[in-house]
């Protein structure tokens, strides 16, 4: 049924053509849509839209550059500081060993010397914590006063709860590990999680650093420092990266390690990226693993919308697209940029360990930021297009309204009453033109009527004359012959009838031959037959009888 309706519409249209309104509507729509789309295209070409994508990329690139530089510099400085601490503590240790006629590897045999040795370190450790940004400073000896030499390690850990304060009044140090008396002697408060010695169960950094230092006895201390991944010391509650620098005597005996902590809180204080208008942006520093980020061993700063201060999952690298790195992990998707960090110098046994700094956001938030006002812009363009279509319909209809009214007036023949009150001069001129034409037609009509009346008068006169002649002729006509004439009309053949009627119409012989396309001989043949059948001797007599017959028929 739809096809039939469509076919009927097409037929009607091809017969009548399209309407003015439709044409004007399409014209307006074409103009307005073209203008809107051209404007939108120009905005896109000149980057007025889509600038959000550039802004996001630019912001992330800038933050990544700043953060990577900052981390490289800070961690480099801390590494150098750690080396200086190790050299100082090693020197103090050597003096102590000399004083007590002890070698470093024999310390375990004299555990009562551990506490005095640790006491020697306190000034250096306190100065380190007071003068540097760090979460704490520590020393761990490969010795213990307990029987458990496998996992218990003597040492000291001084924590700083305000890691980015230096020598500020009111910043107190706290004691996480070490002999309590040393803390009391130095006026340092024990933390709730205080234990006397370190427990390195399931924590590889101690043995790894010690063993590596022993294997590379030829390397300078500047090549032997190590940054652990995120570590939570046994019984502690705060996580951090530990810079571990081996303690080595001048004779190459490795007897412990020392270093500083970049605590979770410190990392958050120093490396939260500038969010700007981008919520949920954060920094991740972590070792890389299989192309992704080992965030379970890293630290995070920023995006306080992330639940939990630590991640226990890694981020796997997804396909990079739109200029961003994409990661998945912990049932979430993240996107941003990553660059490498340079934590170790050339020649370090750890230089193959890759670390990265990333500036990331939850993926949906990043894409929202990239889209920015594009969706708003698209929505606006769509609404404008709809408005333009509606406006075109309204305007075109309004525009054509006086024209349609004029057509109606013409159809209803009401323009003649136009007294010049039309707004539009073209319509007014058209009405005047039509009225003028009507008047001319009226005049012509009158003239024709007059002519017709005159012709009718003449026709009447001729008819009267014919009747008069017919009447006079009747008196000259033999009634019997006239009767034979009337009776034998039916006996004429169709061709003869035709010739007879042409004679009645006043046609002459030439005309009849031309009309019937016959020769003269043929016509004469027909004439003879007609005369014989109708009992007339000539054409004149034939016409007399025919006139009489006509008169009688006309009554």
């Amino acid at each position: 049924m739809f096809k039939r309706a469509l076919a009927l519409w097409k037929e009607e249209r091809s017969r009548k053509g399209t309407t003015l309104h439709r044409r004007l509507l399409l014209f307006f729509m074409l103009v307005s849509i073209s203008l809107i789309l051209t404007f939108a295209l120009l905005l896109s070409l000149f980057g007025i839209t889509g600038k959000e994508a550039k802004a996001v990329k630019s912001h992330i690139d800038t933050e990544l550059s700043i953060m990577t530089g900052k981390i490289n510099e800070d961690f480099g400085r801390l590494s150098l500081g750690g080396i200086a601490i190790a050299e100082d503590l090693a020197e103090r240790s050597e003096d102590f060993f000399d004083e007590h006629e002890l070698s470093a590897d024999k310390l375990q045999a004299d555990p009562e010397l551990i506490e005095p040795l640790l006491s020697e370190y306190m000034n250096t450790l306190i100065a380190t914590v007071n003068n540097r940004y760090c979460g704490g400073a520590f020393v761990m000896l490969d010795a213990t006063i307990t029987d458990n030499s496998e996992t218990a390690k003597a040492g000291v850990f001084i924590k700083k709860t305000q890691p980015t304060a230096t020598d500020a009044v009111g910043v107190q140090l706290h004691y996480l590990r070490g002999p309590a008396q040393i803390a009391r002697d130095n006026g340092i408060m024990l933390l709730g999680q205080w234990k006397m010695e370190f427990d390195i169960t399931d924590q590889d950094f101690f043995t790894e650093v010690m063993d590596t230092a022993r294997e590379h006895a030829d390397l300078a201390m500047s090549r032997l420092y190590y940054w652990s991944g995120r570590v939570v010391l046994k019984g502690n509650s705060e996580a951090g990266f530990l810079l571990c620098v081996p303690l080595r005597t001048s004779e190459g005996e490795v007897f412990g390690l020392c270093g500083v902590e970049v605590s979770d809180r410190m990392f958050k204080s120093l490396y939260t990226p500038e969010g700007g208008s981008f919520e949920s942006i954060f920094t991740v520093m972590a070792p890389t693993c299989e192309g992704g980020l080992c965030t379970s061993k890293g630290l995070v700063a920023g995006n306080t919308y992330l639940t939990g201060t630590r991640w226990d999952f890694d981020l796997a690298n997804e396909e990079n697209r739109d200029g961003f790195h994409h990661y998945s992990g912990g049932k979430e998707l993240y996107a941003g940029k990553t660059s490498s960090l340079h934590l170790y110098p050339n020649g370090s046994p750890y230089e193959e360990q890759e670390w990265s700094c990333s500036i990331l956001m939850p993926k949906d938030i990043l894409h929202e930021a990239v889209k920015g006002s594009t969706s708003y812009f698209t929505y606006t363009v769509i609404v404008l297009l709809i408005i333009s279509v509606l406006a075109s319909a309204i305007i075109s209809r309004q525009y054509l309204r006086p024209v349609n009214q004029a057509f109606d007036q013409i159809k209803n023949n009401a323009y003649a009453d136009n007294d010049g009150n039309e707004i539009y001069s073209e319509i007014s001129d058209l009405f005047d033109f039509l009225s003028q034409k009507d008047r001319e037609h009226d005049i012509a009509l009158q003239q024709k009527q007059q002519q017709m009346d005159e012709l009718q008068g003449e026709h009447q006169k001729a008819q009267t004359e014919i009747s008069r002649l017919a009447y006079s002729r009747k008196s000259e006509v033999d009634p019997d012959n006239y009767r034979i004439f009337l009776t034998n009309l039916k006996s004429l053949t169709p061709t003869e009838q035709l010739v007879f009627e042409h004679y009645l119409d006043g046609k002459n012989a030439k005309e009849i031959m031309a009309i019937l396309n016959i020769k003269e001989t043929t016509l004469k043949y027909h004439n003879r037959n007609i005369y014989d059948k109708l009992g007339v001797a000539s054409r004149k007599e034939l016409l007399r009888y025919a006139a009489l017959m006509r008169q009688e028929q006309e009554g």
Partner: protein
Amino acid sequence: MKKAISLLLTCLLLLGSLSGCGNDTPLNAKEPVTLTMWHNYGGDMQQAMDYLIDQFNSTLGKEQGIVIDVTAISSSSELNKSLAMIVNGDPGAPDMPDIFTGYPKLAIQFWEKGLLADLDNYFTADELSAYVDAFVDEGRLSDSGLYVFPIAKSTEVLYVNQTLFDRFAAETGASADMLSTFEGIAELSKMYYEWSGGKQFYAADSWFNFAEVGMAQLGDSIFEGEALSLDGDNFAHIFETVYTPAVEGGIAIYDGYSSDLSKTGDLVCSTGSSAGILFYGDTITYTDGTVENVEYSILPYPVFENGTKAAIQRGGGLMVAKSDEQKEYAAGVFIKWLTASEQNMSFVANTGYLPVTKEAFENDLGTHMDTVEDPRIRKMLTSVLSMYEDYSFFTAPTYASFDSDSDAYEDDFKDLLTDMRTEYLAGNEISAADALNEFRN
């Protein structure tokens, strides 16, 4: 035609709506406001507080556009020092945080300089009625404005290393009943000092509190207007009770928290904040590295003989820096959430503080005891609940020089007793009365 015009107008309205709807609050989720926060819930409590703040930031904070950024965690005394620098305008003072914990006595200093927001502007009377009235009143200053919002309360209890005490009592016949009075504790101190060959038995975290509460128990007061008064027999009795064992041995005069001494087996019992429970573990470590499993008992705060059962009630509250409407409003939203019953109970269960809402304090605490996972906190709460049935509680007065007066008392008292002990060990015994005169002067 009319339909077309209506449709056109609808589209125009749609376009207009793209500019966004109005917002009833000054907050905007798209442009979150960051509030810096200092608090003193560190150490083992830090995880509980971090968890709550993370939870806020990722839920209500995210919805409303509020980010809480903790920039300092320290003990209250450390925070007070930094805050004192700020209020005094000292060079090198850090920036004032938007929200910080502290006591009313600190609030006065900020309030006098117009640096605190009046939280009455952000809580309706109905909302405030959910909190224990006395706790809310503690946070009001002389203009009746609410400047310190209660978050957690504590009292003082007696921590006893039951393992060490039982060992001592078994050999000396000492009675645990003696732990209920300070006179009894003084006697036990002397006995323990002799029995252990010179180890200390008792210490107080705050000797000022010891005197302040003692005077209240004896029906007196250490305050006279906005100054301390050490006159009278009651104070003399308090002083003399501790003097002899402190000088001759048995009572420790120590600069740090008593829990430090407890951890190394150098103390048997101490009076300190009920919120200090997490500083007491289940082991002690001797100087030779030996680790011993121990059990602690938490007993009600001792009372002076013939005195009434009274204990101090204190607890920091949250103060909000005076700033713009957006930040103050955001702080109000955060405080409301943090101190709501559910969050408050979660905080209590993980820190050892006491709740501040009527619902939690009066109804939930006993009911939810089993849900408190840490046995130490459970033990402490049981003891404190019994105290709230028998004891009267008072809060320290708040006047401008309270801190300096109490700090001076503490330092002078410790210095005096340390000096007296040095003299005693050198063979110069000074009587309690003479020492008291010296102290009073």
